[in-house]
């Protein structure tokens, strides 16, 4: 592919030895009717050939704006107000629209977060891929087809011929993202910009895509600009990284330098607010960054991070604009901090108050052999056609005690949401039992449950932007929950109780009159928590309550949830796919796959061998932002099978790497029984005991 005849009228040289991308003092602003909003200020970076550069920061910090600036695609309101963006030595700001068109897609390719949005749903994949070289290099259809075939096999998609002949909607999310990557590689670009390429994917699929991107970068020698909010992911993919905060780069350097010898308070605070292996909610609680992210037009003078910084020195940090300064001794390591040489970076984290481990109480919730099947018929109106059965939950059994946190882990389609629906009474069970204090509720839909039962089991939802009704004030929504649960004698009573609930979730009482759109994501999630606890809930199902929030906010919301749990002795069912946070806060873990519970046990039992093969793969897939952690490299092949058409035998057999160690075709014919390995630790696997004992830990810490 590399020996294509170079185009004679190329805008930039085919071979270039200097930096591929060189951004100097870039400033980008958006202009609204009211004011100029600076989105990026004084941003400089350099990407060398074959280098992968990570761009990390919370939402709103300007990382995507930088990428759009490189593509010169800032929309009608955005303007580059200063600095230069040099691509292979030529300033992109000075290029004509014509020249830019030649560079986009050919020299610089971009991969976006949502794969389905980047593919034309009305065009076969082969056509879409072939377009790229046909437009940019003017090659023939046959040759383009050949190249498409080659690239599709390069992104490790099975049966490339069939892939090229299918439409985007016929592929799974992971496959679609691979096609998008293939499309970006079709023109063999010198620079690949990846804007959160795996955020929409499941962890195991994400791990495979990240693996692929790394390999392709090596194979094609493409430079990469990798934008992500996930430090662990950047650690796995990039050589260098740049941490951004509120429109500025605050620290840049090689991965090792920034991760291990950080020189900026924000980077440090960021690392302290994410749970790392070994962190424990009782011994070492997460340290949330105090305060809020400043709005672009309300930035403080001097250091943007100043008001939230532990090392802030009035009169100095807020006196002038702060330039990037070199950290002596390290390779191209720079920080935007005046005091970096004075701060003792190795000082231990201030021992934030550690709390007592709470005692578990009686069993509150018991689920026995729960099954939930859905019937899907082809034709709704006449009820004819074949009916197919979706087995969303298969023989689920577990129990949860008072003040206990039980984490439910699994990827999309594993049946965890269905389980939550059955518990809440939004669906009734097909078979099996759900006991709340020995009262069977599996067949009582929510409209037949009494108020006490309804208020006992409440839910916290995932998406903060969706969890509150946009056209009702915050206070009104909490009062409504109180009304429904029959709390308070009259309106004044309920209003008082509502204000107390706002205190409970640490929101100012003035928020009662606010509309949800005036609140930030973390604040909305707090209101959601207050609403769930309005009726004195005893069991709270938290469906990925923090996954949509920024890391620094995640820590605060998680801590709040833990604190309320401690005081109210609530049973928390914490649904998540983020194993770091699960390990940090849960007492017990239940791993689900395709409607089955494949492993359940105490947190340390689940996180150490012997594992269920799926747990093992999940653990390996989770990116961990710690350079001292060594992980076994396990990549799952293929996608999760559809629940409409599950594989026979063990649900995980299609992707299991241990299958060959089970004699005969046991895995393909029989669903494994639930086996008890140790007190309270059960797995659903055919593997013999001696093989399980030989399993090695997936995550090991360097002995330092």
């Amino acid at each position: 592919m590399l020996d294509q005849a170079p185009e004679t009228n190329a805008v930039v040289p085919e071979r270039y030895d200097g930096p591929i991308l060189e951004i100097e003092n870039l400033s980008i602003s958006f202009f609204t009717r009211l004011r100029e909003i600076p989105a990026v200020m004084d941003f400089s970076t350099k990407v060398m050939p074959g280098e992968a550069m990570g761009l990390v920061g919370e939402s709103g910090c300007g990382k995507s704006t930088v990428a759009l600036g490189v593509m010169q695609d800032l929309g009608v309101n955005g303007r580059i107000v200063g600095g230069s963006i040099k691509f292979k030595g030529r300033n992109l700001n000075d290029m004509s629209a014509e020249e830019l068109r030649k560079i986009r897609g050919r020299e610089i390719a971009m991969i976006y977060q949502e794969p389905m949005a980047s593919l034309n749903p009305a065009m076969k994949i082969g056509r879409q891929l072939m377009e790229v070289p046909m437009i940019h290099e003017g090659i023939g259809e046959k040759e383009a087809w050949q190249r498409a075939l080659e690239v599709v096999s390069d992104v490790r998609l099975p049966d490339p011929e069939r892939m090229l002949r299918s439409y985007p909607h016929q592929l799974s999310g992971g496959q679609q993202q691979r096609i998008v990557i293939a499309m970006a590689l079709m023109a063999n670009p010198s620079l690949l910009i990846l804007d959160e390429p795996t955020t929409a994917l499941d962890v195991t699929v994400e791990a495979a895509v990240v693996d692929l991107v790394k390999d392709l970068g090596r194979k094609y020698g493409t430079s990469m600009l990798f934008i992500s909010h996930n430090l662990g992911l950047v650690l796995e993919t990039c050589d260098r990284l740049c941490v951004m905060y509120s429109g500025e780069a605050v620290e840049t350097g090689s991965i090792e330098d920034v991760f291990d010898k950080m020189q900026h308070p924000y980077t440090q605070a960021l690392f302290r607010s994410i749970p790392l292996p070994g962190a424990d909610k009782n011994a070492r609680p997460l340290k949330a960054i105090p305060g809020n992210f400043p709005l672009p037009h309300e930035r403080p003078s001097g250091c943007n991070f100043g008001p939230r910084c532990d090392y802030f020195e009035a009169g100095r940090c807020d006196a002038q604009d702060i330039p990037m300064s070199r950290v002596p001794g390290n390779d191209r390591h720079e920080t935007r901090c005046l005091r970096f040489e004075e701060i003792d970076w190795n000082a231990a984290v201030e021992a934030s108050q550690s709390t007592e481990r709470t005692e578990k109480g009686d069993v509150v919730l018991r689920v026995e052999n729960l099954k939930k099947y859905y019937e899907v018929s082809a034709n709704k109106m006449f009820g004819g056609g074949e009916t197919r059965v979706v087995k969303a939950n298969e023989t689920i059994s577990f129990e949860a005690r008072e003040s206990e946190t039980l984490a439910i882990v699994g990827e999309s389609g594993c049946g965890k949401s269905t389980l939550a629906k059955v518990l809440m009474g939004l669906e009734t069970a097909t078979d099996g039992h759900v006991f709340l204090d020995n009262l069977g509720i599996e067949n009582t839909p929510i409209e037949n449950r009494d108020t006490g039962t309804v208020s006992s089991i409440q839910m916290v939802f995932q998406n903060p932007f969706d969890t509150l009704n946009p056209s009702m004030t915050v206070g009104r929504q909490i009062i409504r929950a109180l009304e429904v649960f029959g709390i308070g004698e009259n309106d004044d009573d309920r209003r008082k109780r509502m204000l107390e609930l706002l205190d409970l979730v640490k929101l100012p009482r003035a928020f009662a009159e606010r509309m949800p759109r005036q609140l930030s994501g973390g604040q909305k999630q707090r209101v959601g928590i207050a609403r769930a606890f309005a009726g004195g809930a005893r069991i709270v199902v938290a469906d990925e309550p923090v996954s949509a929030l920024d890391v620094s906010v995640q820590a605060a919301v998680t801590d709040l949830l833990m604190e309320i749990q401690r005081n109210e002795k609530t049973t928390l069912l914490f649904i998540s796919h983020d194993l770091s946070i699960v390990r940090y806060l849960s007492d017990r873990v239940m791993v689900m796959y395709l409607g089955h519970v494949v492993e359940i046990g105490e947190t340390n039992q689940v996180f150490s061998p012997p594992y269920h093969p799926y747990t093992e793969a999940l653990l390996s897939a989770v990116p961990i932002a710690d350079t001292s952690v060594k992980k076994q490299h396990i990549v799952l092949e293929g996608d999760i099978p559809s629940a409409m058409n599950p594989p026979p035998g063990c649900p995980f057999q299609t992707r299991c790497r241990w299958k060959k160690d089970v004699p005969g075709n046991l895995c393909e014919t029989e669903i494994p029984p639930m086996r008890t390995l140790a007190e309270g630790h059960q797995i659903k696997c055919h593997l013999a005991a001696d093989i399980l004992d030989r399993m090695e830990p997936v995550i090991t810490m360097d002995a330092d």
Partner: protein
Amino acid sequence: MEPITWTGSFGAFLNPLMLAAVVVFFAGVVANFAMNLVGLRAGEVQINPDHTLTINRTPVDYALMAMKYSVLLFLACWALFVIGGLTLPEYEQKGIIGAMGQRFLPVWIALIVMFALSIRFKRKLGLYGKLFDSPIGMVGFGLVMFWMFSAIFADLIITHGPIDVISQMRNEVPGSFLPSPDEGDFPLYILGGDNLGRDVFSRMVMGAREVLKIAPAATLFAFMVGITLGLPAGYFGGRLDTLLTFIANLVLAFPVILLFYLLVTPEIVAAGIPTAMAAVLFLFPIIFFVVLWNSRYHMQPQKRLLYISISLVIGFWLYSGLAFNADPLGIISMPGNILIVFVSVVFVNSPTVFRIVRGIVLDIKTRDYVAAGQTRGEGPWYIMLWEILPNARGPLIVDFCLRIGYTTILLGTLGFFGLGVSPESPDWGSTINEGRRLLTIYPHPALPPALALMSLVLGLNLLADGLREESLKD
């Protein structure tokens, strides 16, 4: 006496000015088009290092500027005519435009007061206030309110009774004086007389009242029916949805005009079908409000009782008056022919509203706040009416404005075919129909109601556009 001229004494210098404005405008259009063809573009905003903005003007910018100022000049001329009409003493000096401007004085005052207040307090008025950020929305709102105020102040504006006949004035051209005006009579027919000798201007203004009496109310009823049926169809889905959608499609597939002809056929009226339809359709608002209060206050029995009984009392009082013309107090009444128009308009509009509501509900019911409502044990009607409906208001308000426009045209069509409304009713459709017969000889009786209809519907469409545009911004 000679009829007065259109522009009066100001015309001498304003007419050439207006003509010049029109010429400049069209020259600008042509120049702009030509320059675009040869590749000239409007100047772009440059940002200087000191964060100031500079615009380099190109010829295209000057052409656009010329067009803008010519439009302003044109409007200023109109304003001057109106001012002339208010200040000059004699009708010959005012001209027809000036005389009309003078008659519309209450409307001008109301419009100025309303706009001044709204713009002053626009930041506190929510979506309505935001409307005043959009020029298109303001123009639309202005047009709609012009006719709204005309309808309200019609008694002050009209110069003669809408059905008063002066036979000498038959087909007289605009600006004609009365042959022998009595003491206190308005001395002329501003827009001339129709083929029976009635005043076209007064009929046009009274027509606004006729149209605006029916169109918004009928649209509101159509929305009540559409919402009350669309919410459960979208929310519950399944067979109910299939059935209701099928019925809606059936109604939509039936030719509208044919349906109207059927409804006004004496046999069908005698069989009581329109009344039966009214009895069903007018029940929906009552159901809507009862369910609304019940779902909200079902655990506070006192409040529930209060709100529901108020809704029931007012609802059935209006119901008896509107549907059966049997108001026990004798205040509310609806003549039979209006009832037919009303029922038919509601009947053909509600399926479309139903479909819009159903579509929005299908989208909104997947949101987490709906799930949150379900998990705290809210009934389905609470979720539909209090969680989903308020969040569907944006598209519904926009559609409401558009639909009043359609209804107005529909009423015009009905009037044009002589359906429903009484023969001498001044509504715009009937007036156009009457004027149609002598259109080639005397265009003046048919044109004013046609232009009025057009401007009202245009205003409603612009208003809907402005609302849509502003509701998307935050």
